[in-house]
């Protein structure tokens, strides 16, 4: 179908018949600004094709003119399969009409026309709804050009018809879809991306559980059998133990050993006694020998000791002399030093007394100075008192005088204000007439009188009569009040000051200020007499000064009494004494240092001499004591036993030792088992009895324990449970293997189906893709289009990566959608069914570069496909270089 002309009247905004003619092959552009009615024209094309003339739908009612509701009429001229067709419809509800005429010949009306149209263009109608099919895809309304290419089922069927005519039936139809779905569903029941699930997972887990149980049971069974073997072995042990043991013989053997032990013990006791006797004899012989030796040694020691003592006594005598000499020397030097020290002490005491005297003299001086100051201050104070009284008597302070002056100024101002408006009354009297003239009852006492009158005034001339003056003033009362107030204020101020006028007040103030100056000078003089002293901590002021004088007087009396001074010496004399005392002290200190140094040598010599003497005396005492004790000991020993007696005793004891040794040797020579040997045997035999009983008891206990364990466990039927668990494991393992295999089967099946399906789709969509491809290469070099089986654009593949269509920019989406439509149109053309592509305000999102490329693409496509572009952008679309359509009056 190629559109050739469109004519409308009374359609929506267009009341007057309008016509677009001369729509050619290739690209046609209709340019119009917004609100021009481009979309209305698009609606008209859609309406005349897809809406029935008699339809009373909202859509057809909307065709009427906005205001006059006249009957809309549309006429479309088009070419189809080499013939020229005219389709005309009047949308008038029940009265609607449709005509379809082929060239100048065949003509269809109303329902026939509608049916023929439907047949020709291959769109569908179900009930009241029209399914525009491929035309809906190719005629792109404003705002629908981007996004998916709006392939509805009927359009898809049309396209699929075209495709299948080219590539044959490749899909499996609805059955083909159901099989992979069923397989995938079955597979997903058994596995997920995380591994086995559902029944499969449960069986694996049960299998694991049963295997763990088997391991546990096997361990238990093995333990049980080990216990059984152990029990049999222990019983055998017990039998062997009992068989090998003879209790009676063992006990008899122990008894025999015990009787043997008694004999052996007796023998051992005798030997022990003999040995003790021998040891005693030896001990005594030793002692006799030692005694004899000691006697000899003592006698030998006394002679040399006496010599040593004589020598020591001589040494002690000379040491005592040396000590005497050293002591005399030290005493002499110490005497001299003591004299020096006494002199120093006396000189220091003198110095201290002189200091006190000096302090006393100074205090007396200070008393005198302070007393003179006090007298001066007291005299000044009397004068100041007088001055203060005088000042107090004068009331004219600067403030009071100021106030009087201000009042005076106000009075002057008030009088001036009055005089400005007042009536001047001047009275000149003759000399004799003077007394008889009165103003307001007050006699005029001067010959020339001038009055400023603001109030009614009566001049009474005695014997003549009265003259009334009545100034006509509007604010006379205010003026008078101000004047009166000012006068009263001035009078009051002066009265306070106690003067008659302001000049007197100034004079009084001047007097007062003079007095105040004097008082101030006096105060400063008083302050100078008692300035205070930070060093002596004397506060400024008279009181502090007086207190200090009292304090000093007290101190002077006390010190004079303490120092026993009847009169005070003069200061210069005292200071001279002090200087001399200091010199004397310095000299004494030097002499004492020298004397101290001179004492060191003699002291050291004395100490050494004393030490030497002490050592000699100690030694002498020790040797003398030793000699005395030795003499005493020797004497005492000889009194007990003589030297001869000692020698005889030594010989006697040697004989006794010899006898005792012979007795021991005799006893030792007697043979026989020792007690220790017999004891060892008894111990061994007793241990054997004990060990046998212990071992027997232990074995019996172990047998009882094992039997207990076995009887506690045998009822469980470990092997039976194990067999059941093993059977269960075998069944579960078979089930796991079966499911494992099923998963493999389903995976292979799903994979094979998916691959085959993908390949089939690729083959099936190849014609569309191959038609889009040249255009896409012009738009996006190096890009490939991925369509899904529904002819929807799924993605664009660039550089090996697939970009999901809906993720692309709006502009790119729209451009690709337009390309796809061109490809669809070409697909139809390939089936001998040329189709028009209408783009209403499309490509609005394209940038400059892209729109140029799109123009190239449209131009290239226009070689085979009729394209109608409706746009509001004249300047831009001029570059498309297309045929321009005009909307003309019909």
């Amino acid at each position, binding site marked *: 179908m190629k559109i050739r002309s469109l004519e409308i009247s009374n359609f929506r905004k267009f009341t007057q018949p309008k016509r677009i003619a001369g729509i050619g092959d290739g690209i046609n552009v209709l340019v119009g600004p917004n609100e021009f009615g481009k979309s209305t024209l698009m609606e008209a094309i859609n309406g005349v094709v897809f809406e029935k003339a008699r339809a009373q739908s909202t859509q057809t009612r909307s065709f009427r003119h906005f205001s006059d509701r006249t009957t809309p009429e549309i006429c479309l001229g088009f070419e189809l399969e080499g013939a020229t067709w005219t389709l005309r419809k009047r949308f008038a509800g029940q009265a609607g009409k449709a005509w379809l005429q082929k060239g100048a010949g065949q003509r269809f009306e109303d329902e026939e026309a509608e049916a023929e149209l439907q047949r020709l263009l291959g769109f569908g109608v179900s009930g009241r709804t029209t399914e525009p099919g491929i035309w809906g895809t190719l005629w792109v309304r404003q705002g629908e050009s981007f996004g998916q290419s709006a392939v509805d089922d009927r359009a898809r069927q049309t396209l699929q018809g075209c495709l299948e005519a080219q590539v044959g039936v490749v899909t499996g139809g609805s059955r083909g879809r159901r099989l992979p779905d069923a397989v995938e569903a079955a597979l997903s029941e058994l596995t997920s991306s995380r591994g086995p699930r559902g029944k499969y997972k449960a069986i694996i887990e049960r299998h694991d559980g049963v295997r763990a149980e088997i391991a546990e049971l096997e361990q238990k069974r093995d333990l049980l059998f080990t216990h*059984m073997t152990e029990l049999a072995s222990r019983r055998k042990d017990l039998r062997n133990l009992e068989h090998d043991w003879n209790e009676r013989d063992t006990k008899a053997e122990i008894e025999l050993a015990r009787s043997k032990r008694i004999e052996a013990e007796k023998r051992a006791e005798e030997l022990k006694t003999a040995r003790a006797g021998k040891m005693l004899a030896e001990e005594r012989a030793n002692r006799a020998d030692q005694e004899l030796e000691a006697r000899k040694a003592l006698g030998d020691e006394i002679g040399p000791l006496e010599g040593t003592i004589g020598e020591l006594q001589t040494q002690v005598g000379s040491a005592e002399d040396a000590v005497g000499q050293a002591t005399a020397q030290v005493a002499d030097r110490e005497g001299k030093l003591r004299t020096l020290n006494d002199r120093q002490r006396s000189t220091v005491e003198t110095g201290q007394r002189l200091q006190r005297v000096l302090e006393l003299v100074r205090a007396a001086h200070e008393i005198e100075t302070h007393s003179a100051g006090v007298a001066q201050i007291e005299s000044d104070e009397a004068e100041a008192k007088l001055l203060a009284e005088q000042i107090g008597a004068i009331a004219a302070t600067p403030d009071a005088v100021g106030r009087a002056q201000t009042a005076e100024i106000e009075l002057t101002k008030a009088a001036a204000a009055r005089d400005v408006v007042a009536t001047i009354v001047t009275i000149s009297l003759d000399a004799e007439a003077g007394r008889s003239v009165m103003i307001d009852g007050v006699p005029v006492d001067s010959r020339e009188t001038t009055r400023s009158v603001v109030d009614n005034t009566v001049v009474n001339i005695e014997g003549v009569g009265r003259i009334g003056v009545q100034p006509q003033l509007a604010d006379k009362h205010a003026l008078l009040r101000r004047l009166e107030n000012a006068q009263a204020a001035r009078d009051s101020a002066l009265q306070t000051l106690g003067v008659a006028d302001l000049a007197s007040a100034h004079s009084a103030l001047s007097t007062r200020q003079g007095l105040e100056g004097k008082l101030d000078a006096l105060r400063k003089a008083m302050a100078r007499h008692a300035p205070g002293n930070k060093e002596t901590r004397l506060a400024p002021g008279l009181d502090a000064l007086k207190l200090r004088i009292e304090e000093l007087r007290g101190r002077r009396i006390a010190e004079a009494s303490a120092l026993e001074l009847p009169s005070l010496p003069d200061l210069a004399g005292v200071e001279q004494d002090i200087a001399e005392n200091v010199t004397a002290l310095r000299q004494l200190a030097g002499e004492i240092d020298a004397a101290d140094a001179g004492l060191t040598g003699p002291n050291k010599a004395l100490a050494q001499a004393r030490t030497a003497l002490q050592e000699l005396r100690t030694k002498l005492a020790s040797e003398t004591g030793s000699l005395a004790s030795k003499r005493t000991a020797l004497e005492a020993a000889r009194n007990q036993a003589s030297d001869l007696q000692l020698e005889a005793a030594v010989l006697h004891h040697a004989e006794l030792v010899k006898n005792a040794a012979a007795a021991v040797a005799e006893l030792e020579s007697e043979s026989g088992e020792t007690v220790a040997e017999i004891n060892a045997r008894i111990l061994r035999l007793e241990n054997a009895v004990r060990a046998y009983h212990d071992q027997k008891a232990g074995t019996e206990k172990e047998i009882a324990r094992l039997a207990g364990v076995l009887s506690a466990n045998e009822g469980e039927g470990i092997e039976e449970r194990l067999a059941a668990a093993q059977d269960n494991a075998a069944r579960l393992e078979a089930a796991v293997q079966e499911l494992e295999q099923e998963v493999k089967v389903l995976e*292979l099946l799903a994979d094979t189906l998916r691959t085959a399906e993908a390949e089939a789709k690729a083959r099936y969509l190849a014609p569309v893709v191959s038609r889009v491809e040249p255009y896409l290469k012009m738009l996006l070099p190096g890009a490939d289009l991925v369509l899904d089986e529904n002819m929807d654009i799924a993605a664009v593949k660039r550089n090996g990566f697939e970009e999901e269509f809906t993720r692309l920019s709006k502009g790119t989406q729209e451009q690709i959608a337009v390309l796809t439509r061109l490809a669809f149109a070409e697909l139809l053309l390939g089936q001998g069914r040329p189709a028009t592509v209408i783009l209403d305000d499309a490509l609005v999102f394209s940038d400059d570069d892209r729109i140029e490329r799109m123009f190239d693409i449209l131009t290239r496509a226009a070689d085979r496909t009729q394209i109608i572009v409706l746009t509001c952008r004249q300047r831009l679309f001029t570059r498309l270089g297309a045929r321009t359509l005009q909307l003309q009056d019909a």
Partner: protein
Amino acid sequence: MRFIHSSDLQIGKTFGFFEADVASLLQDARQAAVGTLGELAMRHDAQAVLLAGDIFDKQQLSQITLAKPIEAMRRFPKVNWHLLPGNHDHVRDNGLWDRLTHSQLPANVNFHVAAGAVSIADDAAVFLLPAPLRYISSVDDLTAYMDSDVTPEGAIRIGMAHGSIQGFDSDGETSNYISPNRADSAGLSYLALGDWHRQMKVNDRTWYSGTPEPDRFKLPPNATDSRCNGGAALLVDIPSARATPTVTALETGRYRWHRVQRILTEDGQIDRLETDLRALAPNLERVVLYLEVSGAISLAGRKAFEDKITQSIAAAVCGLRLDDRQLILEPTEADLDEIDRAGFVRVAADRLKAMAADDSDRSRAQIAALALKRLFLENLRSQDRP
């Protein structure tokens, strides 16, 4: 002297290769064998039942499992039960025999845990010479003592042992050998043997009774049908010490175990297989079946196999153990057309078929074949849906 000879009850045995409910039925059947033997003894007027070893399957059984057969024996007070420890339930200190001895044993139940002749009849000179196992396996012939163990002249001597007869092709047991001439050398009227689950006569006086309830899918040598070993006991009648005993087989098994092997080469054979299986027994509920199928069938054939065999037959029998690992799927053009004649699903089916035929990767080929089967079934299912 008339008695019943049985062995290898192996009570407590489990059947892991079956689902738990089936395994439970089979375990119950083993317990019930004692009652069956007792009833047969009563019916045939036998004084005793000799159980020649492996009465129990394991040493450590639960008290209940141990006590149940004893309680079943108590129900037949006129029958004397003589129990011999075998390799599964050999004698050991504090073992199951000790446990049973310490429990409340009925007077008619006797354990023979030590070798040596014992009189087992009050009114006649009948001696039992048991050869109990003290270990799982023993190198010595434990029946040897019977040759020298003297009994009163004219007494009936009955030997009872558990093990393999020397020189016979045994069930795989490699120890506990017993001399085949023991009955003669020891002057035994009868030697009751256990261990082999198949009933077998060694000589006139020496028999294996076999297990009273089958427990393995093992066919006897030169089997003519699919029935497996076990399920019978022996009724032994010894008129006198020197007489040859009369030995009669008695049916005891609750379930019959069958092992069927079949090669399928075309889909049509599946119906035949179903018919044959249904003819195994009048009451299929008492059949335990091991079906081994090999060969190759189409996807449609496989669907039929699953409908008729793995579902219908499996439901009809007590238990079905199926081994179809060698049954190869050979999808036909019709199978693939059934999936789809064109379109990507058909492309996928063709690819899976090629993969399944690729011998270079057997495990993948197997998965691919199963995937194709799944696709075939999913397609059928999807057609069932609206």
